[in-house]
């Protein structure tokens, strides 16, 4: 899992201000990491920028956990 997972993790830690060890694959942004709905929009924006990809709204809605994000980005880059 690689580089993409590490970069995703770093963005999540920075953006949500959470402990690094809480950012595990199964962690839900909203339920486990304290994000609100606007935070999730901002995270998607940050992922788009970091990886140079575009995440459409319907795909963004399916990204609920750290693992979801990593999986989506791996398929998109």
């Amino acid at each position: 899992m690689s580089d993409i997972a590490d970069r995703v993790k770093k963005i999540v830690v920075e953006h949500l201000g959470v402990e690094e060890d809480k950012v595990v694959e199964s962690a839900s942004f909203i339920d486990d990491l304290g994000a609100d709905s606007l935070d999730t929009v901002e995270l998607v924006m940050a992922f788009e920028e970091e990886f140079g990809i575009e995440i459409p709204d319907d795909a963004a809605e399916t990204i609920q956990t750290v693992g979801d994000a990593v999986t989506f980005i791996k398929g998109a880059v």
Partner: protein
Amino acid sequence: MFDLTGKTALVTGASGGIGGAIAQALHGAGATVALSGTREGPLNDLASALGDRAHVVPANLSNAEAAAGLIKDAAAAMGSVDILVNNAGITRDNLFMRMSDEEWSQVMDVNLTGVFRLSRAALRGMMKSRWGRIVNITSVVGATGNPGQGNYAAAKAGLVGMSKSLAYEVASRGITVNCVAPGFIATPMTDSLTDDQKGKILSQIPAGRMGTPEEIAAAVLYLASPEAAYVTGATLHVNGGMAMV
């Protein structure tokens, strides 16, 4: 107070009297401004009168793609859009019973949907920089109604509800969303009124005179400033007491 040095501002409808005064006020406070409108001539004139820190970005806001494109153009010219002043607006007055679907939807497209699209496109940059100001120019008739302006009054009242909802969503990100509601303002449009028409209007204004574009611009400058950081979801009425709401 009200120093906008280093900030960037996009003003729509800048070819009109009020929009031009707003651009001038923001520029005078140190902001870099992007002037938008449909008529390039007056925009270029204003830009050259302002000198440095002024860019022209024409757009027709009745077109859906034009709104997102305008934010991109303005950001390309200035580096960012920190302040968005949605001033562009049109009227298609008619008695309600005679109003066509087209007259209704043209006004909605530009005055309400256009503002929605521009604001949505501008938010991304504002969210990232954790600072932003959206100032929507509404109208006293959005609060009071006006015969012959069912479409215009609906769009302006709609802006108030839209601004409040957006203000809720983005307040935690340092972005404020407010409205300025002008009353009767002396512009080329009101110059063409007859003395009789003017007399009737003035009799309803406690201040006894029409307002000036500069008086609207001053309200916008305040709401755009760092000093107004704690004001959001508000409508600032500038109408000489014509409607105290």
